[in-house]
């Protein structure tokens, strides 16, 4: 990496730190205003989070959510990319099906939950399904647009070289569309996480979502704050990492 780009990422780190400091100040102020019926201060939250992380009963829940989320994300990415590529390559199919995807996407997914529960029962399968249906459509839509935006001259180049469909996808379409697909993956990542947690909150006996729902029922503000903090931390750093990778990709393009 050269001097300018590392200088650029130093500046990036600095502004990220400033943002975090600002958020902590706002949080502290809000906690004072609202009082401890509903919130805890950053320091109290972090102390409690540390306690939570050392308690053995917490880890099985985390593992459960991690597994469900990992599986849901994997499915959302694989299915989303497949749908996106199929439709992106096939102009006619995409003209017909893109509006359908957009319509599906705008349904509040929570209304599908009873059906999914009946299909999959209480347990991991339902959570995974719920996570996947949240994430899959944005990934498919972004991929579709990305593939369709690949410059025709790249495709012609591939055809002149005699590349078949497989090589055309892996050698030309995928790398050419990658920067835009990445944006879809970032959006899909957050939505899949939300979906998985929602799934756990409404019908599950395990997982962070279940813990959260339980804490809400018991009005346990400490647990609510600690879990929210952990989730924000996880989602924030994962999204930051994806953004960083995305920038690296764009830098070369």
């Amino acid at each position, binding site marked *: 990496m050269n001097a300018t780009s590392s200088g650029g990422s130093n500046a990036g780190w600095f502004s990220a730190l400033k943002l975090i400091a600002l958020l902590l100040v706002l949080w502290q102020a809000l906690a004072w205003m609202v009082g401890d019926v509903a919130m805890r201060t950053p320091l109290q939250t972090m102390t409690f989070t540390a306690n939570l992380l050392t308690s053995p009963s917490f880890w099985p829940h985390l593992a459960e959510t991690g597994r469900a989320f990992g599986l849901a994300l994997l499915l959302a990415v694989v299915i989303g990319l497949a749908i996106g590529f199929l439709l992106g390559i096939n102009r006619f199919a995409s003209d017909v099906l893109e509006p359908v995807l957009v319509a599906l996407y705008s349904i509040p997914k929570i209304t599908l939950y009873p059906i999914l529960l009946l299909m999959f029962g209480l347990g991991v399968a339902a959570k995974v399904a719920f996570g996947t249906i949240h994430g899959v459509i944005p990934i498919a839509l972004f991929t579709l647009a990305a593939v369709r935006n690949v410059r025709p001259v790249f495709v012609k180049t591939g055809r002149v070289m005699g590349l078949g469909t497989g090589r055309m996808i892996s050698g030309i379409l995928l790398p050419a569309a990658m920067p835009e697909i990445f944006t879809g993956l970032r959006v899909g990542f957050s939505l899949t996480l939300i979906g998985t947690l929602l799934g756990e909150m409404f019908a599950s006996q395990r997982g962070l979502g279940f813990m959260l729902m339980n804490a809400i029922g018991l009005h346990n503000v400490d647990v609510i704050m600690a879990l929210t903090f952990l989730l924000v931390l996880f989602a924030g750093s994962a999204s930051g990492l994806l953004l960083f990778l995305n920038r690296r*990709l764009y830098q070369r393009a």
Partner: protein
Amino acid sequence: MTSIMTTSKPITPTRTPSAPGAAQVSLRGVDKEFIRPGRSGETVHALGPIDLDLRRGEFFAVVGPSGCGKSTLLELVAGLSTATRGDVTFEGKPIHNRIPDGVGVVFQEDASFPWLSVRENIAFGLRRIKIDPKERERRIENALAMMGLTSFAHSFPAQLSGGMRQRVCIARTLVTEPRLILLDEPFGALDQQTRLLMGDEVLNLWRKTGATVFLITHALDEAAMLADRIGVMSARPGRLIDIVETGWPRDRDSRIVQEEAFGAITARLWRSLRAESMKAIGKPEVEP
């Protein structure tokens, strides 16, 4: 059509044409119509009818007013699209929307892959070709050297000028050792001086590879300087209205622009094209 062929008179009859050879590409009664998007069934007659033979090893240039169907013609020869009527054959075999082996194409737009380095871009040309690693390296190094890109092998296209990116595309085609190289206004975006020098590069690679070169250009002087024969196209639907034999020796370079014959060829091209170019910009035909 044969009547069109007979209009071609060598400008300098004392010299022999530099690359006589058997027909490598032949087009017979070729027409191309496009379906106009939106309106049902309405078509645009973009090209033809065209009758043309490209001789093996010759340097053939095409000039014509903008929008007359030059790129359309190139895509038909490359097998990227199918003729509405007529036949296109390459080395005796018909091209039916199937990409023939042995044909390399450099497009009008920049087609270098931004996600690959210069070297990787060039190596990409060999993706489907099974050769041993040593030969592979040799071809890549050769193409890098021939296009003056050796010191930029590890740069990315975004770091190069437009002319260098086009050279990357030419090099990516060269490694496949094509017998026919199709170039669609590869230097259209470059300044005049660079274009003349790039012309020398193309002449060089034409001599070294022995391939047939089919060059589309909008610059009459470029055509006059580089080609053995120049096809002049009418306004859309593009037909060949003249074929000019230049009679240049094989080991020519950009210095031939000083020769008298060069002026005569350019003048003849312009005489054929003037009325057509006016049609293309929507002005009525005016006889001088």
